[in-house]
């Protein structure tokens, strides 16, 4: 039994292990480096949160794990191991067989992510039947059972409803029911609660936690909501411009964060424990264009401590280095300096 505080984060035995993932898109304007050298891992039964401003590459990362990129313009390199099986170089058919079964995803916007012309039941049945050789009747029973499981009232009736007949919260539940249809071992939830009111949010998150305990699945949770992160996640990746700026346990990130970008994110949420669902806009300026990411530290144009780097931040990209057990930071500042700044200047503001 290894404690998450002690295990090396880039464990070769982890259930999901992402190593130096790069996803670049060739576009008319140039090469978009949406994900650029990202590494993390998730164990069974654990939750990893990915946080970062809009456009930092969170969704591209999760779609990349499922192999849902357009082969025509996406260039993917690095390695993704799922339960020991490498996915980046695997054949599309091999990845497809895992998709929806071993790994599945809850999408950001449930209304546009459900097909408007098919009933909720049909769509769940389809997800179940692709991977299970069962009759239509069995699939229907399964769909009703799943809808009941996610808390849809009168599931035997609502199973024949169309997505537009469901409320926002119910659609999200239906989406969750669909992604759980084959008991996935890896569940990726891309902002599963953004569009929902607070009560429904809480219910959905409880539901995900229950299901995780039941099936011991690994969860990747993408969210803007640091409150949710604090509640649900074991580990956190802080992403910026397609890279990890900081990576560690929830307590590392919330109680001893070492990266100036993480500080900025935390500062955006005043009263962390009470206020939720605030979009992160604290840091002055905008994220860099992913076509022309500045050389060196991608954050340097917005960093308050840029001057302390002696020019290095403009030429050399800081590596993601271990600053404590399982706690990784990509910043040129010396560890003691970072800790001192956090203790003396930042912590008091949070």
């Amino acid at each position, binding site marked *: 039994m290894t404690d998450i505080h002690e295990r090396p984060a880039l464990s070769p035995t982890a259930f999901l292990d992402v190593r130096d993932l790069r996803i670049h898109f060739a576009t008319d304007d140039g090469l978009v480096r949406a994900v650029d050298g990202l590494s993390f891992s998730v164990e069974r039964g654990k939750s990893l949160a990915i946080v970062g401003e809009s456009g930092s590459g969170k969704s591209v990362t999760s779609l990349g794990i499922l192999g849902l990129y357009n082969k025509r313009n996406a260039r993917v390199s690095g390695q993704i191991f799922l339960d020991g099986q490498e996915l980046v170089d695997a054949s599309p058919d091999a990845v497809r067989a895992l998709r929806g079964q071993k790994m599945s995803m809850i999408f950001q916007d449930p209304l546009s992510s459900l097909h408007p*012309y098919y009933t909720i039941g049909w769509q769940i049945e389809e997800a179940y039947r692709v991977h299970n050789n069962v009759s239509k009747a069995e699939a229907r029973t399964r769909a009703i059972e799943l809808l009941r499981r996610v808390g849809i009232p009168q599931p035997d009736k609502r199973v024949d409803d169309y997505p537009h007949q469901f409320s926002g919260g119910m659609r999200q539940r239906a989406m969750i029911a669909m992604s759980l249809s084959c008991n996935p071992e890896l569940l990726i939830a891309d902002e599963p609660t953004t569009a929902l009111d607070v009560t429904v949010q809480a219910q959905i998150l409880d539901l995900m936690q229950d299901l995780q305990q039941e099936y011991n699945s690994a969860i990747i949770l993408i969210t803007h909501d640091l409150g949710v992160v604090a509640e649900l996640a074991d580990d956190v990746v802080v992403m910026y411009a397609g890279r990890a700026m900081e990576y560690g346990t929830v307590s590392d990130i919330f109680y001893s964060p070492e990266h100036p970008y993480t500080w900025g994110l935390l500062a955006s949420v005043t009263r962390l424990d009470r206020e939720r669902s605030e979009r992160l806009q604290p840091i002055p300026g905008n994220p860099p264009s992913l076509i022309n990411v500045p050389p060196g530290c991608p954050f340097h144009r917005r960093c308050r401590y840029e001057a302390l780097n002696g020019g290095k931040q403009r030429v050399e990209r800081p590596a993601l280095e271990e600053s404590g057990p399982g706690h990784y930071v990509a910043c040129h500042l010396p560890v003691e300096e970072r800790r001192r700044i956090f203790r003396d200047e930042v912590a008091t503001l949070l």
Partner: protein
Amino acid sequence: MPNVIQYIIRRLILVVVLMWIVSMVTFAIFFLIPSATGTSPAVLFAGKAPTPDTVKSVEIKFGLKDSIPVQYAHFVEGIFVGRHFDNGADKSYCPPPCLGFSFVNNQPVWNEITSDLPVTLSLAAGASIMWLVSGTAIGVLSALKRRSFFDRAAMGLALAGVSLPIYFTGLVLLDLISYNWQILPNVHYVGFTDNPLSWARNMLLPWISLTFLYAALYARLTRAGMLETMSEDYIRTARAKGLSESRVITRHALRAALTPIVTIFGLDLGQLLGGAILTEYTFGLIGIGHLSIDAISRQDLPVIMGVTLFAAFFIVFANLVVDVLYAFVDPRVRYS
């Protein structure tokens, strides 16, 4: 399901209202055209250089001296129950649906229309199937193989198709296939019931010309629809389920991309059933389009009215069919 029935009833009421409006507008033609040309309907009907007596008896027979609302009422009545025309000396009965008698040959307008209808029906039925199948198939393939040679060639051809008038493509086809190469010589209409094979052979060139025109449009619409659908979130969801690409395309993408085509198809077909004037003239076919032009050139007012009403009926009816079909294919319509 009661939703669907309600919906259909609402649409039916709309159809009745629309037809009523169309009939009034059409009826107005009957009076507007003569007043514009300065010749009364009675004079037109009575033929060349009529005597005042003949004009008078025509006026009495057809009730042309009645007030306009009364004449309209008789006109509508005729459509439903038929009409007796009588001026004492000269009696004639016009069975329902009575649209009056042709000024030119004194035949009931309804007979004129029904005798030319098979040509129009043949033209529309064959061409619409051909263009629907080929247009959507090409559109889908183009979208799936975007920027490929096939896509570029098909879209180039489609551009030619939508921009070339039917008499141009029709005449080129006739010149090459019918006259020069004698593959399908002497295009003329043969009834379907007389000889189905000969019917199809003779209709082939008109069908191809119409198909070239319409399929081009359908290919472009389908391609655009497919490209849009393929980038929808729900297509990503379908892939995320682990479905095969072919299932993603057929069950998820096509289903959504082809739905708007239903609307356009219904309307195009409805319009074509009201007569394809240029196609009929190009190939010397005597259909509803030909009848309408003929009637206009001879100022045969009852026939003009009849054909207009008839064409309008097809368009309104096609609208109804499209709306009902749409309710079946798009649940969002059904339940709103």
